């Protein structure tokens, strides 16, 4: 009882509490993940970093954020993504295509410049950038640029970049779990979070994000389209030899 009184008077700081100085956030759409993130979501106006193998669900993780920020009417900037974003899949995730800005760049200086412009402009709701390895020397500048806008800014790297320090507000690692029953399962480990220590891993299901929400490949009901495709059986060996 006495202890509770102390806490109520806010004279004791408990490590698990996130400081109140955390800025605005956008919920991830995954309650399990939100619980671990300071403020309960992706930080706005600060850098986040996602380390993941390409094709392990890192982009799906961001889709609910894009869908949520549709109404802001600002750009979703894709800076030098490794592949072409699929218009159909984006629409299926509820993303307003008119706001998607696809910026294809070749050299690293161009990429950094483009990112910085997008972050600073205040015209982007979400800024996504892809790098083969963290631009360590420029991260601080990017973080400052992110601070002057209020975008959800996310950089993607391949995993295994080590534990180098970062000025970003958040760094997470996403790994796919090999699960036959649920192909969308990923483990998320929080490597750095502002106002807390590394934590996780937490396993969440991106199942609804992996494909269009209505049509997960393992969903019980077969969409009508399957039949139109000739009604072939699942799996291999169906080539007409």
């Amino acid at each position, binding site marked *: 009882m006495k202890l509770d009184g102390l806490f109520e008077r806010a004279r004791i700081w408990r490590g698990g509490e996130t400081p109140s100085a955390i800025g605005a956030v956008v919920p991830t759409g995954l309650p399990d993940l939100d619980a671990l993130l300071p403020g309960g979501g992706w930080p706005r106006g600060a850098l986040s970093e996602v380390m993941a193998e390409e094709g*392990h669900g890192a982009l799906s993780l961001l889709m609910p954020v894009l869908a949520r920020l549709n109404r802001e009417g600002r750009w979703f900037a894709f800076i030098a*993504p490794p592949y072409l974003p699929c218009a159909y899949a984006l629409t299926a995730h509820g993303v307003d295509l*008119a706001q*998607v800005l696809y910026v294809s760049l070749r050299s690293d200086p161009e990429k950094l410049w483009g990112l910085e412009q997008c972050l600073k402009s205040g015209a982007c709701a979400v800024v996504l950038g892809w790098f083969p390895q963290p631009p360590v020397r420029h991260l601080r500048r990017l973080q400052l640029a992110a601070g002057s806008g209020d975008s959800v800014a996310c950089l993607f790297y391949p995993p295994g970049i080590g534990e180098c320090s970062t000025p970003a507000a958040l760094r997470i690692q996403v790994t796919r779990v090999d699960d036959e029953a649920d192909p969308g399962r990923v483990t998320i480990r929080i490597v750095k979070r502002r106002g807390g220590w590394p934590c996780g891993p937490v396993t969440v299901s991106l199942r609804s994000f992996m494909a269009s929400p209505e049509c997960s490949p393992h969903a019980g009901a077969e969409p009508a389209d399957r039949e139109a495709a000739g009604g072939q059986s699942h799996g291999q060996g169906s080539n007409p030899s």
Partner: protein
Amino acid sequence: MLWLALHLPQLPIEVHTRASERPLPAVVAEQQDGRSRVLSANAPAARGGVYPGLALPAAHALIAGLYVYRRDEQAERAALEHLATLAIAYTPVVSLAPPHTVLLEIEGSLRLFDGAERLLQRLHAEVRRLGYTASLAIAPTPAGAEWLARAGRNIVVRDPDALRAALHQLPLSTLEVAREKRAELHDLGIRTLRDLLRLPRAGLARRFGVPLVEDMDRALGLRADPRARFQTPESFRSVLHFPDAVIDAEALLFTARRQLLELSAFLQARCAAVRETTWQLRHWRKPPSVLRIESSLAHRNARRFLDLLRERMNREALAGAVESIELYAGRLEEYREESASLLTGNAREPLHDRSLLVDRLRARLGADSTHCLDLLADHRPELAQRLRPASPAPRQPRAPRPAAGNGRQPAQDPSHRIPAGAPVRMTPLSRPLWLLPRPAPLAASGARPQWQGDLTLESGPERIESGWWDNRPVARDYYIARARNGTRLWIYHERPGCTRGRARSASPPQLPPSTPRWFLHGLFS
């Protein structure tokens, strides 16, 4: 009626030197009585002792390295028109009084601009910013204002009596009369207009011509003085020459800024905006560099145009030193005012910010760097979307589109683009978030496709067989496959015999039907 006269005493020389930030001593010379004389000298030359009327050899003797130009009346006229365009922001009634004066009727604008003095100061500052020396005067008659301004009296005169008093003190040189007649008047002992007005009218008209008397009547407001209104031209063009060829980008941008301020005034006068500006930088003995600068949204903000030009110059090296710089803006569009929110907190419309970002990216990184995605109604995945140059489409178009006949798409868009934001009823299909720009062939061992090891097919097939009508037929079975490391891929195999074979029905299928060709088309990410 209250008239403001904007007189540019240095115009002949300023059209030549205006391009540079710190002009060197320069004069415009003209043949007078068989001798080259200085017509107009800029401030540095005047500081060296050169004045209008001085013989050119004497001017050369005073200042070494003096720049001498021939008079360019066409450029003077163009400059005057640009200033008249600028003046339209102050009043709709503007007229030219060549060679060096613009007249504004400002009676109706006094309230808006908080009085004649304020208006005068504001216009003066704006003209100075464009690199002109000006003297301004306000009087009840156009000719009176013009004379006062020409005499360098920066005064505001409101009633006819005060005008008469002010005009009385003007020297005779203010009058536009032939040189011999002026000398004759001078010999008669006439120094000011007061002396002239004291003479009997009939005699004066007989000796010096009726126009002189009429001019004075007009100046005093005793005679009607209708002026032709200035009409703004349909397009904007401004050329500035450099005294010495310029290679420094900042010096070019300084000049460009002056031109853009003029463009901005022009657009304001026309209630218009432009999307595209064309710059022509001329070089010595080389074809000119043409910079076409496009903005994704029509606007008339000089600073924004300048920003884009700067980014563009950072990206592109010029062919050489620049001798002259020309700005052209042709296709005018209706100007849409940026609307601010009445309630605080909900900031301004993001449309302009979005357009600004796109313009900057494109100016620096090239027009092919920045795109938007369109969703098209097609079954073939590579044709179901299209990249188009990025432009911030307003989310809800203000004006309803003109109804196309029998509900079809407008004729200029042959593909079936699905307008962004339109309610799309999606057929539930599994599509990966990443597509390869071009399907990549996969190795196969036996019937099993490979990508970093054997692939396991998780689901499929989804057959897409389409496009036989436009010579890009596809016949594919799509599968979702899992790689060893857990990556999920979207792959297909071409159905042999149907694919290209149908397009060229005579030739046999290229591959034996037993070896399916596998392709990687996307990644689930």
